[in-house]
């Protein structure tokens, strides 16, 4: 008896090992595909990478030397191998505008985007999940209709336009929130010099430093973009929660629980919710990834110095290494989030193990 359980445990370990190996192989192939794509985009771009480094007035010798140094005389496959090797070591090339390594620049811009997207997702989950549950428990009711229509609006609204309208109403007309940017300009310098930056996320850093005046100011700036983005992700989350919850509430174990006389809130929030959580994790991860991507549009509106602003500004300066580096980073985060949600899925759902 002990023998068989031992061997079954062994085979389970083996199965998990195989699964992890396939998962990692998939991840590697996907990342390689991402790099191939940005590599190809970088090669067909009509901007001559050599010329943008040496300048228009360089001699032929200087031009050839720079070309050699960039490895542009090598065959394509070899160039790609070098590109992949560099990327694996965290070298995504140098920005043409500043001459700084792209990855270092991105590391400086990324926390602002992360902070915004995280806060927005928190809003989206806190409102979206209860709204979806409410709609699912009273299908056809007024609450259900309201949630459905609010969701459809969130699906259909151009997020950059929503941002402009939000600025117009809450900042321009009502004056309830801080305007564009992460801080008032008066606080901007103070933040650079007087606050130890642990994370690059203003809310966390100011709180850790005990600068609550600055925290309040930063909050007044982030609340509008985070709220609007949160609304968009709320639309998606509430809709998916509703359909998952409807599906669960039709199951037989729910009927059993009700027949036993269990209070309805317990049936919904404890029994059904546990099973709804499983697919919901994927939905939340997806909406988070979507917010990171959408930052390209929203950050322009709110003058938010994040990854999205970095990519768009680089785009207009024809700084291709920066654009492609940003694309690689966002893509990699995308892939990582997908994979993370897969793993969480297995942790929460024993059937998927």
């Amino acid at each position, binding site marked *: 008896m002990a023998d068989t359980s031992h061997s079954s445990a062994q085979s389970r370990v083996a199965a998990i090992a195989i699964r992890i190996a396939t998962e990692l192989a998939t991840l590697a192939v996907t990342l390689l595909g991402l790099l191939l794509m940005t590599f190809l*985009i970088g090669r067909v771009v009509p901007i001559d990478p050599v010329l943008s480094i040496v300048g228009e007035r360089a001699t032929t010798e200087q031009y050839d030397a720079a070309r050699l140094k960039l490895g542009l005389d090598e065959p394509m496959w070899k160039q790609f191998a070098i590109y992949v090797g560099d990327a694996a070591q965290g070298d995504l090339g140098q920005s043409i505008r500043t001459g700084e390594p792209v990855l270092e620049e991105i590391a400086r811009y990324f926390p602002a985007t992360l902070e915004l997207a995280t806060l927005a997702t928190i809003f989206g989950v806190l409102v979206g999940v209860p709204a979806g549950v409410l709609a699912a428990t009273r*299908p056809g009711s007024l609450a259900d209709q309201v949630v459905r229509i609010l969701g*459809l609006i969130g699906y259909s609204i*151009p997020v950059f336009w929503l941002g*402009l309208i939000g600025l117009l109403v809450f900042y321009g007309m009502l004056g309830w929130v801080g305007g564009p940017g992460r801080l008032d300009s008066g606080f901007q310098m103070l933040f650079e010099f007087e606050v130890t930056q642990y994370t690059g996320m203003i809310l966390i850093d100011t709180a850790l430093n005990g600068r609550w005046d600055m925290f309040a100011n930063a909050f007044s700036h982030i609340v509008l973009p985070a709220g609007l983005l949160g609304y968009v992700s709320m639309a998606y989350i509430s809709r998916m929660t509703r359909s998952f919850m409807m599906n669960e509430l039709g199951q037989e174990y729910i009927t059993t629980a009700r027949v036993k006389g269990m209070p309805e809130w317990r049936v919904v929030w404890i029994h059904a919710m546990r099973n709804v959580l499983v697919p919901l994790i994927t939905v939340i991860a997806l909406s988070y990834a979507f917010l990171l991507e959408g930052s390209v549009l929203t950050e322009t509106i709110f003058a938010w110095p994040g990854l999205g602003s970095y990519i768009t500004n680089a785009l207009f300066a024809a700084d291709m290494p920066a654009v492609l580096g940003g694309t690689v980073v966002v893509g990699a985060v995308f892939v990582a989030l997908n994979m993370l949600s897969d793993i969480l899925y297995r942790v929460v759902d024993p059937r998927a193990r």
Partner: protein
Amino acid sequence: MVALRVWLSDPSPSSRGQARLGQFWLGWLRLRRNPLAVSGLAIVGALLVIAAFAPVLAPHDPLAQDLSRRLLPPFTPGNLLGTDDFGRDILSRIITGSRITLYIVGLVAVTAPFLGLLVGTVAGYFGGWTDAVLMRITDIFLAFPRLILALALVAVLGPGIENAVLAIAVTAWPPYARVARAETLTVRNSDYIAAVRLQGAGVPRIILGHVVPTCLPSVIIRVTLDMAGVILIAAGLGFLGLGVQPPLPEWGLMISSGRKYLFEQWWVSTMPGLAIFIVSLGFNLLGDGLRDVLDPKSAPK
């Protein structure tokens, strides 16, 4: 009229055409009972009509500048929705812009599903290595952030309406490939495909003539649901200045040109944004309704 209705709802149709039209009729009856879907259909229909008759409907030339009449507020006589910073009539520009939106949506709706169907049916029909490789590529594309990829592509190709369409189509095909593959797998081993094969039909003929038609309904629903997203991405590219170029009245571009005047002349940005919102809402409503009609499993109870 009554005879037609009886003919359409005949439980034992005498021809294939009658059966097919009867199916459409039943679907239409179901769609008609859903008020949200009907309003979606009305919005999309209105878009088609407005785009078709844009030159007649637009009260002014959408490109005609009149600097003495710049930034006039809505409800000014002669300019119902006001004028922009060059004194151009906003209503006329929105009406004319519907053509650009429809053009982009139409092109993407043709190219992306075509590519997706091709990849999906081939992968599903052949299976094995072909399937593994093609679906791996599809997954890689699916793993990409769509907007950023479109952005990088437009950066390479240069801004412009055709390049924007191409960039959006390149990022939009993978879901169609998934759907088409799933449908292909269900019919691949069915008897009628085997019968066609035994009659000596070649692979292209089997796929194009017999596999693709079975995939079409699910692909069409997907297209309708996707169109709202396409409109939003196209508007986003226009807003960033990477899509349609000025002075063409593209809605996203109009929003961005009104940004400078947001706090004083709010209507310049607001009106085209409303147009985008309404049209994309229309496609979402219609897509939802179509899905409920054609795929009763997902219908809300």
